[in-house]
């Protein structure tokens, strides 16, 4: 009975985190973008600096009519948001935030593989949405999503493989246990490749060609309204949490901090994740969108060779020491 209770509590906590953190990042995005662009952002909802804006947005989304286009493939159209959102919830389950046994939802032996595999499934949601909407713009968005995923999954995998080689394990807590501070300069190229590829997988600017609003309206999500559209947005923000958390765990040492990890491990993890999330928002405000051929060129001619070079470097250093 105690085991069942333990599992239930862990699942509940992860679910709560899954509901809260994306909203925090969304609100931060409102505010950071506003200040970077010299405006105030939402100021009224809830009183203090518009903290309840996203809650109000959620209420608005829930009240909207749920429209399915007449020509659409009804069932797949309705299923797509769930397919896009659920993988991120599953990934959140295995990200460790502290050094102790209790600080991770579930320890999985092949953690890196689990994380990358499940995240790859999320893109199926965008593809299903793009196809089932019976809309040319949606289909184009779906196509661009697929092309982007195919190009960026490989460098991401290679960069993660480099860390796994360095640590000698593919389990996420195992990698953190093996982490030393000098891994940071050693794996920095891999970290950049991983983070960039992660951004591309989330379709965040400057990699938001699949949802480019000036060309194809909103890509695969054009026909969605109300709660289902909100689920796609939530998937994007949950994706930011997951990518930043993973970069923290794999490359930035997770719960390791300058003053030791005693009791403060979760704080370091969250701080590093928050800084990375800030960078994600910053890039959205400061970088123009890349063209489709530039996207493909960046992945195949820059990121993959860099990731391979990182793997070679990791191998050489690993043999020498």
């Amino acid at each position, binding site marked *: 009975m105690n085991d069942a209770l333990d599992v239930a509590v862990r699942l509940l906590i992860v679910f709560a985190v899954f509901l809260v953190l994306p909203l925090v990042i969304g609100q931060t995005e409102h505010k950071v973008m506003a200040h970077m662009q010299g405006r105030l952002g939402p100021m009224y909802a809830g009183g203090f600096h518009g903290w309840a804006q996203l809650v109000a947005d959620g209420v608005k989304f829930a009240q909207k009519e749920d429209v399915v286009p007449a*020509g659409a*493939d009804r069932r797949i159209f309705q299923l797509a948001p769930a397919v896009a959102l659920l993988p991120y919830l599953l990934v959140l389950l295995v990200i460790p935030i502290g050094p102790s046994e209790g600080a991770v939802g579930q320890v999985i032996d*092949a953690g890196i593989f689990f994380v990358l595999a*499940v995240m*790859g499934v999320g893109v199926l949601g965008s593809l299903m949405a793009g196809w089932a909407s019976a809309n040319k713009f949606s*289909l184009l968005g779906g*196509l661009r999503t697929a092309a982007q995923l195919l190009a960026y999954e490989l460098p991401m995998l290679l960069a993660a493989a480099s860390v796994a080689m360095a640590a000698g394990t593919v389990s996420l807590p195992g990698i953190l246990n093996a982490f030393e501070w000098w891994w940071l300069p050693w794996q920095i190229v891999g970290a950049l490749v991983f983070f960039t590829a992660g951004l591309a997988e989330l379709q965040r600017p400057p990699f938001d060609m699949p949802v480019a609003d000036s060309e194809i309206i909103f890509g695969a999500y054009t026909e969605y309204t109300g709660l289902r559209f909100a689920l796609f947005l939530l998937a994007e923000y949950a994706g930011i949490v997951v990518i930043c958390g993973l970069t923290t765990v794999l490359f930035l040492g997770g719960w390791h901090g300058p003053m030791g990890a005693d009791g403060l491990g979760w704080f370091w993890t969250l701080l590093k994740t928050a800084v990375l999330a800030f960078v994600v928002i910053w890039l959205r405000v400061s970088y123009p969108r890349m063209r489709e051929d530039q996207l493909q060129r960046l992945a195949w001619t820059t990121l993959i060779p860099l990731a391979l070079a990182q793997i070679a470097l990791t191998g050489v250093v690993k043999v020498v020491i």
Partner: protein
Amino acid sequence: MILAAQTQGFLSPTGVEIAFLLVGLATLGAAVMTVTTKQLVHAALWLVVALGGLAVEYLLLTAEFIAWVQVLIYVGSVVVLLLFGLMLTRAPIGRSPDADSGNRPVALAVAGTAAAALVWVVVDAFRTQWIDLDGPAQGSTEVTGSILFRHWVLPFEALSVLLLAALVGAIVLSRKRAGNSETDPEGES
């Protein structure tokens, strides 16, 4: 795996065995749907269900590593590539009555024969072996890695050469088309 056929009975299945059977039935159903549905994209999506079901079967057999690789390669990459190809060429919503070719009976015969042969070979090979599911995971990454690179390293290398050949072949095929038109130095993305 341990030899324990004497202590195992077919009449008192454990929970894992029941789950294995049910997931197997679901996988089989999804596979049948894949080949019988008249809607092209639905076939690809049923394939996702079938491949995912296989991954669950691996998990139930404690082969974690293989299960996640199955999801990563097949669900995450192969099916996405398949959908990409479908969307690029022809992905109508609704039924495509012309999707069936006249080879149906032949295909059924080949599939039936292949399935029968595989089932027969596997049953014959592993007749008395049982996997101890209660102990530590037997298909962990460490175990899989050491078996792969100690006992099976030659087939592994042969496979990687095969993949390299396929890669080179794909490049050659796409280059040829670019050379004929002699305009764009890049191939397709």
